[in-house]
């Protein structure tokens, strides 16, 4: 067994026991990145010097018996949407090429303080807009389970790096499924926390009312351990919830006996791939066997989630991305004559087609005369979607459902068909619109060996229960022990 095959907690145990050093673990990652990343292309930037320096500091702490956290010394990667002081951060966009942030995102600071070496920045769909990593301005990332296929998106680089054991864990962000869908596509665990649970400060904004950072790992316990570090109230983020951080690992092994799990019928619509549905259905039966009660429930406004999301998210994005104007940082069209041309040339060259599409959608939705019909209406429907969840959570403890209607698709397959790409998110969007937490846990493989994920949705700030439910399944079916053939 290679060092990089260990889970985060397994490595942490060895670090604590002095059986391995953080420098060794970090070097193992760097070597593996060097060997496999040319095939995966998960990394936009590797910070070898920074990671090794952090690893050395970690080893010193371990030696002194003063580790900063249980995960002190465990190397991880960051989606390139998180600001890293002194290290280029691009959001996968040309418009931020060469941008070196003057500050760390709050979660980056928390990871540093907890002693985790940061291996570098991971590829993503440009500004997190996409479901396949193909809208990255730099290159698409490949799925370690089948390099002709997408690892999903937008946190595809994070998911692929975890699945390819280039990193022990990673941070992603989830605006409409961007943590959960790539996790499902790569046999990894991805958790989108409750909106407000993890600070957004220093996370490049796509859609502010939906964006939420979260952990991406190989096991449920790793996700719990990483969330333990990330879930802190942040006074720099006014939407960060002043809620106490529970011990996410405490109840992990308590099982699901006696729990009521809702199965939302709207999440098993026509058009789902048979093998995906079969895997998910098998997982549901497994929960029954483990003592949970399955309850057929309805979230009647689910059918409007897609339309609602594609009004609200682009509307916010059109405003959030206005700052990329070539005036202060990032790309600047130096040949522009006059202000208007500076704006139009910079933005024309700096943004890719998907970003432009969403800026135009959002600008339109907010325009005078259309605002009421689009943006305002979408906000009202969003309230109804949120109420759907509130209602069912009066009856059930959590919901279990598919993540994606399909298994990982071929790179290039949907690139020219934005609408069918948008439809990939149909089961993940409602969770963001409602602000509730959602988790993706591996639940099987198709015959072709492609991963399938199970989605678990819960009440606001009930992450601990989601992790416990996911762990109950993982204990019986340790798909995470299957390693991507790379």
């Amino acid at each position: 067994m290679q060092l990089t095959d260990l889970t985060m907690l397994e490595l942490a145990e060895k670090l604590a026991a002095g059986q391995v050093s953080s420098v060794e673990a970090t070097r193992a990652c760097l070597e593996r990145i060097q060997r496999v990343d040319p095939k995966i292309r998960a990394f936009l930037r590797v910070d070898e010097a920074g990671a090794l320096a952090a690893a050395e500091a970690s080893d010193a702490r371990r030696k002194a018996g003063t580790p900063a956290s249980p995960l002190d010394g465990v190397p991880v990667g960051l989606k390139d949407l998180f600001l890293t002081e002194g290290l280029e951060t691009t959001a996968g966009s040309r418009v931020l090429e060469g941008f070196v942030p003057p500050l760390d995102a709050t979660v980056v600071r928390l990871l540093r303080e907890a002693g985790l070496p940061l291996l570098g920045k991971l590829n993503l769909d440009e500004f997190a807009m996409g479901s396949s990593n193909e809208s990255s301005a730099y290159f698409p990332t490949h799925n370690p389970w089948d390099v002709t296929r997408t690892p999903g998106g937008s946190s595809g680089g994070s998911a692929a790096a975890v699945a390819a054991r280039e990193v022990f864990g990673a941070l992603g962000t989830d605006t409409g499924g961007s943590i959960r869908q790539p996790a499902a596509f790569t046999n990894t665990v991805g958790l989108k926390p409750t909106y407000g649970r993890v600070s957004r400060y220093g996370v490049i904004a796509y859609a502010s009312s939906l964006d939420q950072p979260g952990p991406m790992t190989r096991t449920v316990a790793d996700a719990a351990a990483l969330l333990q570090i990330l879930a802190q109230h942040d006074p720099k983020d006014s939407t960060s919830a002043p809620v106490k951080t529970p011990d996410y690992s405490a109840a992990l092994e308590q099982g699901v006996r006696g729990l009521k799990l809702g199965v939302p019928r709207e999440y098993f619509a026509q058009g789902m791939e048979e093998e995906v549905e079969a895997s998910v259905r098998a997982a549901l039966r497994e929960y029954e066997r483990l003592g949970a009660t399955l309850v057929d429930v309805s979230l009647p406004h689910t059918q409007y989630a897609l339309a609602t999301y594609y009004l609200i998210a682009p509307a916010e994005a059109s405003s959030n991305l206005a700052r990329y104007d070539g005036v202060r940082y990032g790309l600047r069209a130096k040949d522009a004559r006059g202000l208007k041309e500076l704006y139009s040339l910079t933005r024309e060259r700096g943004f890719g087609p998907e970003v432009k599409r969403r800026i135009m959608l959002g600008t339109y939705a907010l325009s005078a005369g259309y605002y009421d019909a689009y943006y305002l209406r979408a906000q009202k429907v969003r309230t109804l979607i949120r109420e759907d969840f509130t209602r069912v959570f009066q009856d059930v403890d959590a919901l279990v459902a598919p993540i994606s209607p399909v298994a990982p698709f071929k790179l290039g397959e949907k690139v020219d068909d934005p609408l069918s790409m948008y439809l990939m998110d149909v089961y993940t969007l409602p969770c963001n619109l409602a602000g509730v937490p959602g988790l993706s846990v591996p639940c099987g493989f198709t015959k072709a060996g492609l991963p399938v994920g199970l989605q678990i949705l819960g009440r606001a700030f009930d992450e601990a229960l989601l992790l416990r439910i996911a762990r109950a399944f993982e204990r019986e079916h340790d798909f995470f022990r299957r390693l991507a053939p790379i």
Partner: protein
Amino acid sequence: MPVSDFQPVIGLEVHAQLLTQSKIFCGCSTAFGAEPNRNTCPVCLGMPGVLPVLNERVVDFAIRTGLALECRVNAKSVWSRKNYFYPDLPKGYQITQYDLPICEHGKLLIDTPQGEKLIRVRRIHMEEDAGKSVHDAGGGQSLVDLNRAGVPLLEIVSEPDLRDADEAVEYLKALRDVLVYLGVNDGNLDEGSFRCDANVSVMPKGSSTYGQRCELKNLNSFRFVKQAIEYEISRQVDVIESGGKVDQETRLWDVNKGVSRSMRSKEDAHDYRYFPEPDLPPLHVTTEVIEAVGHALPELPRAKLQRFVSQYGLPAYDARILTAERPLADFFEACALRYPDAKKLSNWFLGELLRLLKEEGSTVSSVRFTPAQLAELLGAVDQGTVSANAGKDVLAEMFLTGRSAPDIIAEKGLAQVSDTGAIEAVVDDILAKNAGEIEKYRAGKKQVFGFFVGQVMRAMKGKGNPALVNELLKKKLGD
């Protein structure tokens, strides 16, 4: 129809910079005059990923202002984004309040030739200021200074209740006085910390339908406000008179030429695409907070003026000047506690103290003597220890040095001579030298009496007690 057949209708929008130490959404200093882009941070520079955090002091100032203008303070108000591209707007949007401002439905009393008039205040909302663009910086370049970006502003919008330029100026002055009294704004029009835009329209007298309005910008003095509004009224009347139609547009006042020119028409108007700011939750203000701010509210200019008239028995003219600025009014009251004759005190303030302050170009806060010292001086004048005239010189010296009146009187030998014998000797001497004038006086030319007083005072270097001098002269001249 001549201009007099038209009724102008005017509404004003005031942008007042708040006197907070730090900006509205970050910790940067709001100090004026720093080196360009010195007072900036990733938040007010609009870096990727950063988020606004509300400065609570701004809310306190807004509530204070709202209560002073008798507004309803909304328990819930909402932040919005106003989207437009400009280099001095780093995020590409301004965080402001739109649908639900913090304060609504207020009022402000102003004085007009017809008496008091109530001007309704439609709304007050909080927002961030933009930076400053410096054009023609050379080499065909423009420069941007973001020190001002994120400085907190209150926008105070009146209803279109003003009917001519004078009323508009009265409203602005009254509003400025209130803001300065509250300590939320420095009232400085030149530096742009108190800015005004005017919406002006005209309609035929007797009509109840407002005409098409134009917005006037760049009115950075009360004089320009008056000039620009008057110009705009006659411009609109001319347009209508010549059979034309007033177009909705924004016009810029050209200070040098004394005319306004069109800045943008309705067609070029921005679509600001307002929507609720997702980075800031709605603002909730509790009744307790509103009440606490209300209790701490200072006396406002108008109330203070009325109290100065009733409590001190001062003429309205005096009271208006004394209450024009809060520190002056406070200083007056501190003196009035120690010196009972308010009218006499007011005369010294209006006649002497304000002149000294004006000559020195300073304000009452820099006065070097204490209220007790002033009361001491005025007491000395009343008791005849020093003459009123010499007292003025003593005050000037106190103003310069902060030394006490008795010290100055002693040192300069300004003490009044009330010794009858000494005065009599001088009177006799003067009369002896001016036999001719005595003749004239006795022949009925009574003005000559003043001549004798002057001669005696001169001989005594102004120190003779005037009452005694008069008395003795009259006696000797046989009256």
